[in-house]
């Protein structure tokens, strides 16, 4: 897992995705929610979500609704893991230190 964590490439879009999740770390967001908050296109967003999930920063699960009664299909929801929260915090803290110096 440690090796996989190091493999996460921090692009600007990745930081924006992480920022959306860090706004409320316990909230579960779908790809549509993240797009709405960050404005990242689907072609960039889903590879980032999959990459972070495979690295152990995110976990995902299907929304527990009945599509026929809800009137819409169920979504895949992503949530920060404790590892992801710690690693993302470290990343932003390092950026912050760089700005303040």
């Amino acid at each position: 897992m440690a090796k996989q964590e190091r493999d996460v490439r921090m692009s600007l879009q990745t930081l924006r995705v992480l920022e959306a999740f860090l706004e409320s770390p316990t909230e579960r967001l779908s790809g549509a929610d993240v797009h709405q908050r960050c404005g990242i296109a689907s072609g960039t967003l889903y590879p980032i979500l999959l990459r972070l999930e495979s690295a152990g920063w995110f976990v995902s699960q299907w929304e527990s609704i009945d599509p026929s009664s809800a009137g819409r299909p169920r979504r895949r929801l992503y949530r920060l893991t404790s590892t992801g929260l710690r690693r993302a915090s470290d990343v932003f803290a390092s950026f912050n230190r760089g700005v303040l110096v």
Partner: protein
Amino acid sequence: MSQRKYSAVKDRRTDGDSGLDNLSHWLIHRAARHTPDSLPQRMQEEWLADMAARTSALSRLRFAIGCCWATLVIAHQRPLVRMPVGAAVVAHPNLVRFSRRSSTLFLVVSLHVAVFYGVVSTLSHTHPGAPPPAPLQTREVPVTRPRELLSRLDPQMAQVTLDVHRPELDLNYEPDLSDVAAKFVEEPSHAGTPPASAEPPAHPVRQVQGGPGAGFPDPDDFYPMLSRHLEEQGVATVKVCVAANGRLAADPALMQGTGRARLDEAALKLAKAGSGHYRATTEDGRPVDSCYPLNIRFRLKN
């Protein structure tokens, strides 16, 4: 599979844009089918669900095209992406063919359809009943000199010469303004009453500027989580226009920021949320509409 049926039924309900929606669904099915490993079923359902959240057909088509691109990126980063489902990594036989030929064809066709749709929708929204404007017609007008025109009308008149004497004007005239000045000075005494435009005697107005009143939201409730985490602090100055009833008469505007976009945005949200809880500015004890700067401090507490 039931998800696909659900989406198909839902899409048939939308009218007008069904062609684009069918294309979008086809693109997503195609893109998801070519994702590696155990992802196709999951990505298809996930993408269809997220696409259903889009409002316009063009937006859904853009989303579907993006998913095609996402498939290529996911396939490219596949050595890094090993989903925690324990599925064996099996190379997809159609992956290479999809990435080189089909995806390009899909993108080209989709872009053409999107451009065509955009042009048609734009044209349909520009005054469908109005007749097209008549093209401008230009006509060259021959320039005829006055004497040539005169000779055409009457050849004898062309020989007539006119002598016009210049008038003699004395431009060095200096008017005597002494009488006018004297009259101007004397005129108020003739009128006997002050002019109508004279202002009434100054009356001092006691004005008390408003501010946040009882029930105004706590800035801590609007402190962004990320800003707390990054220890961002600062004071934002927001211009608020408050009506006499304590409600905002207009959206608050940022006058001076904190240097942190998140905090500035939070300050505007706080100022907006406080509508109805402002103390209005008073003039002689009477509440009036007014605009004034409001300082909002975001400070971390130990």
